[in-house]
């Protein structure tokens, strides 16, 4: 057996550190995206007790709208983002108004199938509008990647994290500081009580839908430069965002954040050190683990629906 000389061993250590750091960066980037998707799920679940299986498709719409506005029409960045989010939110509102509000007996199984139907519909719509091609758009800015201890942090990653921070701080402020936000939270806690004090429940549900799908659109916006966008990208993203929301604790915003980052980082480390093929399984293994051990998620107390 050959002994490795000391300086080289040291160098190897350093390269492993570098590698871990690199995976950590990509994990945090993905984590931020999962967190944004998970927040959308959680917000909606909070206000309506509904799990929207079409949520991933709103992410897809966001991504492809961004391809059109920013990639093809060359609108400036900020107007392109705003326009995209508005379009996706409008799609969400239309969905709520036409499909969800028409349901007379909102049992989980019926709602699951309606939202699944919506996801197929939206995927089909995406295919009609954008075709079956996959698109990519340039990064939001052309800065060179940052070099941190030998690992590279892409400028788009910084964009993603910054936008994520702005969005979650904004949401937090909205819920805690504005009257509308407080009304939404009250409505989420008890519809009846909120109704008694004069909060219009229907409007709150619509608002929740709009905000939730807007978050989905935002996730689509930030992911567009780092992936290939196509009509069928939504399903997996939606399911993973959903896993993240469950992981943290369904219905809790902080839970969604924690779940998103945990999933992103573990997935990245899994790719690095186990196998890239099994990457997609990480989310679901975590999901099963949390359901079996603590079905309420990391954040919420373990009251959940266990018989």
């Amino acid at each position, binding site marked *: 057996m050959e002994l490795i000389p000391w300086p080289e061993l040291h160098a190897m250590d350093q390269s492993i550190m570098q590698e871990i750091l690199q995976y950590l960066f990509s994990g945090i980037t993905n984590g931020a995206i999962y967190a944004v998707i998970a927040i959308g799920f959680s917000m909606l679940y909070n206000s309506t007790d509904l799990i929207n299986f079409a949520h991933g498709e709103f992410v897809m719409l966001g991504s492809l709208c961004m391809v059109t506005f920013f990639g093809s029409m060359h609108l400036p960045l900020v107007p392109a983002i705003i326009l995209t989010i508005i379009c996706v939110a409008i799609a969400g509102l239309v969905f709520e108004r036409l499909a969800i509000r028409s349901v007379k007996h909102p049992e989980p199984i019926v709602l699951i199938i309606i939202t699944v139907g919506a996801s197929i519909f939206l995927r089909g719509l995406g295919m009609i509008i954008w075709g079956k091609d996959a698109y990519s758009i340039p990064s939001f800015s052309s800065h060179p990647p940052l070099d941190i201890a030998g690992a590279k942090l892409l400028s788009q990653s910084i964009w993603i994290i910054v936008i994520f921070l702005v969005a979650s701080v904004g949401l937090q402020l909205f819920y805690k500081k504005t009257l509308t936000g407080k009304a939404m939270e009250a409505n989420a806690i008890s519809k009846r009580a909120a109704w008694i004090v004069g909060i219009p429940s229907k409007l709150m549900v619509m608002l929740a839908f709009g905000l939730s799908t807007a978050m989905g659109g935002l996730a689509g916006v930030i992911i567009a430069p780092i992936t290939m966008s196509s009509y069928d990208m939504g*399903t997996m993203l939606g399911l993973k965002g959903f896993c993240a929301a469950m992981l943290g604790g369904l219905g809790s915003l902080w839970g969604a954040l924690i779940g998103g980052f945990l999933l992103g980082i573990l997935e990245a480390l899994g790719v690095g050190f186990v196998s890239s093929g099994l990457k997609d399984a990480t989310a679901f293994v975590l999901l099963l683990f949390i359901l079996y051990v603590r079905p309420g998620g990391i954040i919420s107390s373990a009251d959940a629906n266990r018989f």
Partner: protein
Amino acid sequence: MNNHQTRNRICYAVFSLLIILAGYTIENPYYIQVLTFIGINTLLALGLNMLMGYAGQISLGHAAFFGIGAYGTAILTVHYNLSPWLALPAAIAAAMIVAYIVGIPTLKLSGYYLGMGTLGFGMIVNILFREWSSVTGGASGFIGIPTLELGPVSFSSGRNYFFLVWGFVLTSFIICQRIIDSRIGRALRAIHDGEKAASAVGVDTRKLKLQVFVLSAAFSALAGFLYAHLVFFISPGTFSFIASIRMVTMVVIGGMASIWGSLLGASLLTLLPEWLHAFSEFEMVVYGLILMIVMIFLPRGLTRGLLDIYERANKKNDH
């Protein structure tokens, strides 16, 4: 013998006659093939209906058992040169064992959480089909699954396969009908109506839910076996999350807690894409719309929904 049983016997007799009649009179091989697929889908819907419709437990991952049946027979017959007729019980047993192991922790959950647990399980199995390529052929699929033969009878022809599949369907219908009409079936429906009350009258709800979960896995695996030997080629996409959702949709659209509803749901969901080919690129949009519209206006499924409309119309006429 009471009315209910007499009516059932007549129903099954007519049903068998229709199968025989269809098998011998339909000449067009395309129709025969579509009907064979309907049979396979009916098995899927039936198994899941026992779990969802009767016991009230949702599963969003049942395509996994469909896949275990298909890959099970593919692996055993191709890699191990086993006779398909030995691979059949082996594949079904494999699905049942997996269902048993997964069911113990998963069936403790309820509502959305149960849906998510089964979804996660289905996704993991599907990823295994895709990634464990040395055994499953990976994303590009598994080729060379042999034709079924039984002595001098070869099931390569459409007609023979049609009879094989519908023979299994008929047997499965009778098995399920018998379970539903028994002590076990009553206990299942009791769990559906109220789990707390069911255990308070002495039903071991955990054990029974697990039994039904295992049973429904067995039907799915049987469907998988029949599917694999019909098309000779399987790939992970057939057993994906979308496939699980399709199964749920068949059950709900056809009608929960209805054996004939499973047949109706499976027929519609098999025929719908065939009809929708005419819409070419609008196919998915129309499919999604139909799903939403049926669920919004007939949330109890077509069988019940149409019956309700009929009854309402009758009541109006009375006044």
